[in-house]
């Protein structure tokens, strides 16, 4: 093959070249100098951190013909043979393919023979976690007391799959993820040797993307060499499908300002530009997280943001309602898992759904918004009772209001004819409750069944009806937006005014406006003197049903 993969070409050949594993290299080098070489090693750690490399280095170092200080020298016949992969005494076994007891028996049989040319026979069991249990057990005796000329090195990414009996017989080294600066330095060095010019920001993005795995990073750099000798951040983003954090920030701004449609545009445009939906989701979460932390009092400059961006983030955090922020984080988090499943039809759909979901305030307000939010000016759209109550913020209400055409189209078909707000009283609602249940039943019998568990109206504030439910588990059932909508529609239909529903757990309910609507007054109404409004309503009700109303003198 003309070109060797960069990660193979730059595989470390001395201990000094190994990046980011200083404690391990130091320990091993000291052990080598002092001649304290053990017979079994276990190298564990995430991918691309240098485990196999270290095993080979160990094999070279123990067998190298040079002075102790210089080992491995990479100049003697042994070192060269190992570098070329042809030393008979370095037995590198693919334990994932040769994982059975028979292969281990084979080792046991041959372990007794002396090395052919080197000092030690080194067995490297790569991917050791894939050995079967009988194979592990067959290895135990040999691993504990091998002949003096044998060294075992077990290499694995999953040390927890290795039996404790094996681990206790080995000297264990845990490789850690390579720190970001170390990766950047290594990449820069390789790029220089390869004669490439790479933007520092591009290098950092590559390093960040590889999450501490050096092989991933070098592999990516390798892939980018095709772009020529100069590599820009943009090219890296193109290959990775990352979008600039700008898009994530803009999306966060849309979330803060209640612009669903604009957010939809952003998502779709980013995808058209080649962004990967999963990446985008992750970046949005990252931005939202920073916003959350800022909102909780962390200083924006703590996140290594440029000053301009920090100010922007501060302003954004300021106007982002905390409730929605939490919901957005939750929704986008769920979306990233959903994206993994994703239907192939519309890859960005989970993100779009998370966007819409961020604007829902469903069910009993567990994290109650300050009461100010509830006093939002009533929206004069009779046709959208559900939306008006579920979108809490007035800013969000603007987009529901801005659809005159649609609403007029819709108005005749919806059965809540009176757009005017009418003052409701609790007794009215209580009286109408059976009818409401009936109306709910027509929509969805299950919802009625849920309500029948003992939910009852307890308070009326203007057009907001507070309904308590007796058991906490109902929270989930009633929290379903569909269900809320059904109840709300039923209320609006029966009471013939636009109602808003608020659901509260009975034990958590505290009457808030005992003063504003004194029950005594209602009782009075109950007693028989109907006020004009009620009379008018009865008349209208009867008329609608083709009846006639006659008022008898009392």
């Amino acid at each position: 093959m003309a070109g060797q993969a960069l990660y193979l070409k730059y595989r470390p050949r001395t201990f000094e070249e190994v990046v980011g594993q200083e404690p391990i290299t130091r320990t091993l080098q000291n052990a080598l100098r002092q001649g304290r070489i053990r017979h079994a090693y276990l190298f564990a750690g995430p991918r691309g951190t240098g485990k196999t490399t270290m095993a080979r280095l160990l094999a070279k170092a123990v067998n190298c013909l040079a002075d102790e200080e210089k080992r491995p020298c990479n100049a003697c016949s042994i070192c060269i043979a190992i570098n070329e992969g042809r030393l008979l005494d370095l037995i590198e076994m693919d334990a994932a393919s040769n994982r059975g007891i028979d292969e281990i028996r084979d080792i046991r049989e041959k372990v007794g023979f002396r090395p052919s040319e080197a000092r030690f026979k080194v067995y490297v069991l790569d991917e050791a976690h894939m050995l079967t249990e009988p194979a592990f057990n067959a290895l135990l005796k040999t691993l504990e007391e091998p002949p003096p000329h044998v060294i075992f090195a077990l290499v694995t990414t999953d040390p927890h799959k290795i039996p404790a009996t094996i681990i206790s017989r080995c000297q264990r080294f845990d490789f850690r993820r390579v720190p970001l600066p170390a990766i950047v330095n290594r990449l820069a060095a390789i790029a220089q040797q390869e004669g490439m010019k790479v933007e520092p920001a591009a290098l950092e993005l590559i390093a960040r993307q590889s999450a501490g795995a050096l092989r991933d990073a070098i592999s990516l750099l390798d892939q980018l060499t095709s772009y020529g000798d100069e590599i820009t951040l943009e090219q890296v983003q193109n290959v990775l499908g990352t979008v600039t954090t700008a898009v994530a920030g803009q999306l966060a701004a849309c979330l803060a300002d209640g612009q669903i449609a604009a957010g939809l545009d952003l998502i779709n445009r980013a995808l058209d530009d080649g962004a990967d939906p999963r990446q985008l989701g992750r970046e949005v979460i990252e931005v939202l997280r920073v916003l959350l932390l800022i909102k909780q009092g962390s200083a924006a400059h703590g996140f290594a943001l440029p000053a301009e961006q920090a100010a922007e983030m501060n302003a954004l955090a300021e106007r982002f309602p905390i409730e929605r922020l939490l919901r957005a984080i939750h929704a986008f988090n769920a979306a990233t898992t959903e994206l993994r499943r994703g239907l192939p039809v519309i890859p960005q759909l989970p993100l779009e759904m998370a966007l819409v979901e961020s604007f829902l305030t469903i069910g009993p307000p567990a994290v109650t918004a300050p009461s100010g939010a509830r006093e939002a000016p009533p929206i004069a759209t009779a046709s959208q009772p559900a939306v008006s109550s579920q979108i809490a913020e007035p800013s969000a209400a603007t987009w529901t209001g801005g659809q005159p055409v649609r609403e007029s189209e819709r108005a005749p078909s919806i059965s809540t004819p009176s757009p005017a707000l009418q003052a409701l009283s609790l007794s009215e609602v209580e009286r109408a409750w059976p009818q409401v249940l009936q109306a709910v039943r027509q929509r969805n019998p299950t919802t009625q069944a849920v309500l029948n568990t003992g939910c009852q109206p307890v308070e009326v504030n203007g057009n907001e009806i507070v309904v308590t439910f007796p058991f906490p588990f109902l929270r989930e059932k009633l929290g379903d937006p569909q269900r809320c909508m059904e109840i709300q529609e039923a209320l609006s239909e029966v009471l013939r005014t636009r109602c808003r529903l608020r659901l509260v757990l009975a034990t958590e309910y505290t009457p808030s406006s005992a003063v504003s609507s004194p029950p005594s007054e209602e009782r009075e109404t109950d007693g028989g003197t109907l006020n004009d409004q009620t009379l008018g309503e009865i008349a209208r009700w009867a008329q609608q049903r083709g009846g006639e109303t006659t008022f008898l003198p009392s």
Partner: protein
Amino acid sequence: MSGRRPFGPLPLSIGGEGVGAQRCCAQGMGWGRGGSSDCPSRADSGVDAIMGWNVIGHEWVVSLLRQRLTSGQVAHAYLFAGPPQIGKTTLAITLAQALNCAEPDAPCGHCRSCVRIASGLHPDVQIVIGEGVGESLKIDQVRSLQRQASLMPYEGRYRVFIVPRADQATLEAANSMLKILEEPPVHVVLILTATHTEALPPTVVSRCQRFELKPVPVATMEAALQQRGVPLPKAQLLARLSGGRIGWAMAAMEDETILRQREQDLEQLTRLLAADRVERFDFARQMGQDPAASRRQIELWTSWWRDLLALCLHRPDYVTHVDQMETLSRMAARCSELQAWAVLKALQTTVAQLESRVNAQLAWESLLLQLPAFRHPGNPREKEQFVER
């Protein structure tokens, strides 16, 4: 999946003899497109489609690969990730052609080597798949791959092993691929495909040059379809319906039944919205017995309600079912974005349930109960007018 692969039988497939065209076809790479038709042979048009680097879309991948090949830098392991039918295997085959083509402007697409690779007759290009129909790749097939990889190429420059759906391989198989993926013999190139990189063990991904294929843009797809003689409105529709999966669009272009099936499914959808519970449950029963149809329906419904969501937010540009604009806008006028969202959520839940092997009929019943009702009276003239329950 119908005849999606533009190549015929491969004589030297690892993992058993006689892995022919039918076997390839039977290996669905995802769900949602099964069941609609059998495997019509498409070898004729297929060869045409992969002439040279004539891969539709994915320009950035092609340009990267081409530059690497011309400068003689061949990576030993590639990973193409992307949703089913997006063109992963086509790309893999084309790459295999490019690696073995003798012409200066490889792949030429018409030399002996290219033609043989396209028709699956090249001895040095092998597709490694599971042994039985729909079975995942097992460790024995990988062991056999390792043995074969140590042999020199018969006539080409490289021995190319294509491992489609590597994410479906068993854990043992994936692990046993690690060593050869990292340091294969010099004459070996491995090409893996997967739906997405997270589905593979990170140790596998880390050893490959990975290319995450993005959906082919609508405009590119429209142009490509028109070039192949598809009239404009149909090209527009197919480009949008495909969701960027060129393979699907090509299949739908040739196979009328796919679009006809969609029409039927759409009718079903509108009928169900108006239907009562008895009818809905009857439908749930049907779906419970036919997983392929069930998945097709869910995909269709998802795109349908997403269209409604887009329309509710006044974004007609994002609509998939462009030919149904009238019905869609009528429905959109009757529902809110929250309703659309709620249905989408319910659909999402159903997908999750079906994947975790919940009783399919039950999942469908639950979904259908959550579906809002748009009723039209029996009068055919009023049929168009949706009346809310």
